[in-house]
């Protein structure tokens, strides 16, 4: 058994900085005031950003962050378990899927925080319902929820968001944007064909306030908000070089390129949401999941590279999650079926890297053979609200989901 125990790679920038600052002060040089480790700057909402990358279909977490030293892993996955010699060790127990080489480098730099076994009580194994639960942060209402988790954050911190005067409260490329649903939350949906963003928005023909009927007025407000958001984007982007598209673009590459285009041209938005599909691996797990891990790795590497080039990596957190994990026991077709908890990743220049949160037992599974979650997903949102953006109202903490002890700044 040869598991390389990766030395504590927590030689964080913060300690290095502290060292340098100390040295500099001692030597009488002027000290550039680095922010105290972990203290959220006062202007965090304006300077920080969150990129949410949703893996659609239910990513097999157990073959992503692999408990390779747990004998039950091998027992439950005799054919789809990953060979020990191939995985990339994180610590004595865990390892990463072999394709995640760039991700591994980020972990070694201390830029990747892995929160283990994140889920919610009474798990729903339907894609639509579980995805709706993650988007709304409402396990009770799921598909019937009327606001999204980010929508809640914006609505409850109205003054801060108004003062920040973003071009959009969030940007999305695919999906209905349910995560941002809420009154007065301007969401921008962007497609590869950017003409809709750059075109002059269709003018309103009447003043919405003059309309009778609550519904017409509400619609009028939405039209006005959309028009304003479009105008703001058009102002930033109309006269700059448009994105250069290759003959065939994968959907994820479209999203990355548009994100890059927006950020490097000064579009202001605190949240960008991307999706990567194809994770519903009921069969041929090894081959299909392997290909997906390679795409995920390449995606994160690409994002990191571009954000570093733009000088934004230290002020960005990438949140990677999926609507559920998959069943520990393999099924009859070389795949795995819908499960419950799975890992959440937080990556960024200032993220406190490492493994966080307890690991679910593979022995005490629930009645459907799935792990019982250890960390509620709403704590991740709470961590973002307080620990990244420093917002005064944290709707998730208010409901009893405290932020995680993972520094993001």
């Amino acid at each position, binding site marked *: 058994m040869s598991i390389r125990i990766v030395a504590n790679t927590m030689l964080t920038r913060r300690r290095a900085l502290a060292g340098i600052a100390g040295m500099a002060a001692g030597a009488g040089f002027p000290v550039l005031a680095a922010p105290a480790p972990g203290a959220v700057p006062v202007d965090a909402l304006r300077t920080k950003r969150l990129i949410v990358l949703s893996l659609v279909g239910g990513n097999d977490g157990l073959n992503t962050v692999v408990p390779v030293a747990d004998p039950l892993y091998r027992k439950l996955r005799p054919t789809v378990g990953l060979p020990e010699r191939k995985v990339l060790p994180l610590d004595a127990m865990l390892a990463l899927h072999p394709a995640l080489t760039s991700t591994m480098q980020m972990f070694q730099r201390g830029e990747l925080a892995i929160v283990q076994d994140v889920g919610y009580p009474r798990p729903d194994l339907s894609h639509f319902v579980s995805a709706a639960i993650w988007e709304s942060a409402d396990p009770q209402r799921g*598909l*019937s929820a009327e606001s999204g988790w980010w929508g809640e954050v914006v609505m409850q911190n109205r003054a801060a968001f108004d003062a920040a005067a973003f071009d959009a409260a969030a940007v999305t490329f695919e999906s*209905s944007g349910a995560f941002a649903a809420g009154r007065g939350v*301007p969401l921008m949906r962007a*497609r590869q064909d950017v003409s809709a963003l750059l075109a002059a928005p269709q003018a*309103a023909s009447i003043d919405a306030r003059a309309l009778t009927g609550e519904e*017409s007025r509400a619609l009028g407000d939405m*039209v006005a908000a959309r028009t304003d958001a479009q105008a703001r984007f058009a102002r930033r982007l109309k006269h700059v070089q448009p994105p250069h598209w290759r003959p065939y673009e994968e959907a994820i590459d479209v999203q990355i390129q548009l994100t890059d285009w927006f950020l490097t041209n000064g579009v202001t938005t605190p949240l960008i949401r991307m999706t990567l599909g194809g994770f519903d691996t009921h069969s041929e797990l090894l081959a299909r999941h392997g290909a997906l891990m390679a795409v995920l790795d390449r995606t994160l590497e690409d994002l990191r590279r571009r954000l570093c080039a733009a000088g934004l990596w230290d002020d960005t957190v990438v949140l990677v999650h999926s609507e559920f994990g998959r069943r520990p026991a393999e099924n009859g077709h070389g795949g795995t079926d819908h499960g419950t908890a799975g890992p959440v990743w937080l990556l960024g220049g200032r993220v406190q890297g490492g493994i966080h949160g307890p690991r679910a037992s593979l022995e005490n599974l629930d009645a459907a053979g799935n792990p019982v979650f250890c960390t509620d997903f709403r704590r991740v949102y709470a961590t973002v609200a307080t620990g990244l953006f420093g917002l005064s109202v944290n709707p998730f903490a208010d409901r009893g989901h405290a932020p995680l002890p993972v520094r993001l700044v």
Partner: protein
Amino acid sequence: MYILTCITRLRLSAACAATLAFSSCAVQALSADDARHLLSRTGFGAAPHEIRALLPLTREQAVDRLLTGLDQAPTLAPPPAFLAEPTNEYLPRLGRDYLPAAMAVGLPMLNLGSAEETALTHRGMQEMEQLRVWWLDTMISSPSPMAERLALFWQGHFTSKYFDVLGPRLMYDQLQQIRAHGTRNYADLLHAMVRDPAMLVFLDNAVNTRHTPNENLARELLELFTLGTGHYSEFDVKALARTLSGHSVDFGGDWRYLVREGELDTTAKHFLGRDDVRTLEDAERVILEQPQAAVFVADKFYREFVSPDADPREVARLAAVLRTGGYELRPFLREMLLSPAFWASENRGRLVKSPVELLVGLVRTFGIAMPDVGMLAEDSRLLGEDLFEPPSVAGWKRGMAWLNPQSLGMRSERVTAIWSCRDAGREALRAGADDLLVRFSAERAGPVPVRLGVRVDGVPVAAAQARCPAESIGAGQAAGKPGWDLLRIPRKGLPAKPHTIDVVFERGAGEQANLFINWVQLDGKRIPVYLSDIRFDAGQPCSAQVPKGMMYCPGVAHFDIAAIEAAQHGMEPTLLDRRYEHVNSIIEFATTRLPLVLRPAARPSGELARDIAEQWQGLPLPQAVLPVAPLLAAPAGAVEPDARLESLLLDPAFNLK
């Protein structure tokens, strides 16, 4: 002349007794806006010919005509094809968590994860899609859209969710019960629903037994279907659950309603203030005796058809009509539709169209011949209303919950996609029985033409471009499925006995476009693409691994007719082709044999609609289409009528009714 007609129309309702010819009451002939309002509130959209048909009538006459029309059974769509294949292989065999109740009622259990169960799951999905297409087509082509609108309402009230029932035939049967009773009598509908197999499975009553009681149906029946929270106690829920015990489903047989005599609890129970409730019939009677039962229903109807703000006095008045009328629905509907509140200007444009109403309304209003009704099923799913899959037992979203900045954008994208395909369906209407037809769909990124050609015996006979390709390349999750288009080559001029047909996909370097070929048809015989040979152009990276017909590279689908007929032994491809490995692909093998165009004769316009704008001649356009003033400016200057209509369709106000 005018006075004569006025007198003959003088059927005064009580409310109008004091106000003769001037006010908004029944003696007035309908204005175009009134007619549009009545039609779009009770049906799906309002086509010009439907509006014109109501114009000479008074409000009373118009409402009576709509109500009488409820009895016109739609003759049109043949039932979903899968019904022709009876089966009792339904999914609870796949190991639902019904233990130990399942054992008690003999529910067969199999292991999860075998290839057979996967095939079963996918077959169910295909059958449900057929069911959706059938119902949507009925909504589009019915002479009585009000019947289908009421069915949609009731289905959102007495909810069942396919995902938890997993029996397509059960969902069909339940819908048929709703359609039969939902326009007639609420008591009969309730009676049918508590014995409906889909309902009994969905809410676990099929496994509600004396030893393993299950309260799910009892609770939802009281809370969501009949009385509402606060009008019953927990003891009532328990009593009702005991009364419902034994009302189950014949799992071992045909999955029909079955009473397990041994599980019945016919002891005298205390329920809603009565002491002698023994049977399910007793319980139904006691529920319907509660004044709240009628109020609950009337309130829901009011919010769904009149205004989102329910006036309690109006609701009480309507509830009384329902209750004293033995829960007959026609007098109740008549009272509601003739009430001043229904016609009041402050209540116009206050209701929001659900996705199905929006899309079916669009198709009906403009007489669009859908080349593929399945597109509507897909689109309504994308917009959040997947028929037969309500988000919960509480039913669908209501009112403004359907609209937010994101959904507004998606709705208008779907409307645009259907509108831009309006010409594709006309082609299908022109098809002759023997013509050479090629059914295909296409996707692209950017304004590149998607080009295809057809050769017969090596000779080019047609070159065309896809009329409405989906902008789905690079759009990932947000894209809808491309709609089917049809290329028609008249039989005349083709060889008498052709040997080969080639469908050619051409694409230039750097162009992002894909073509999906479904089938070809000649002399009335349809050949699915999986019987063809696919040859990609030299140097193209596409391989034979991709399902046949999905042309991600330029190339040819080569149909060798003689060889195919020989291989098929002269028999035509099967009705239900359950190739589950294709269920996620754009090709629908299971629709190969379905009728090409569903009953064009029943379409409202009858003949081909050459120019949609022509239909609107004489009707004031904005008022005829929108319930409120447009929110967006109409295009300036001299504009083509179609463009003007398009700008109205894309106006957010089009979402209201």
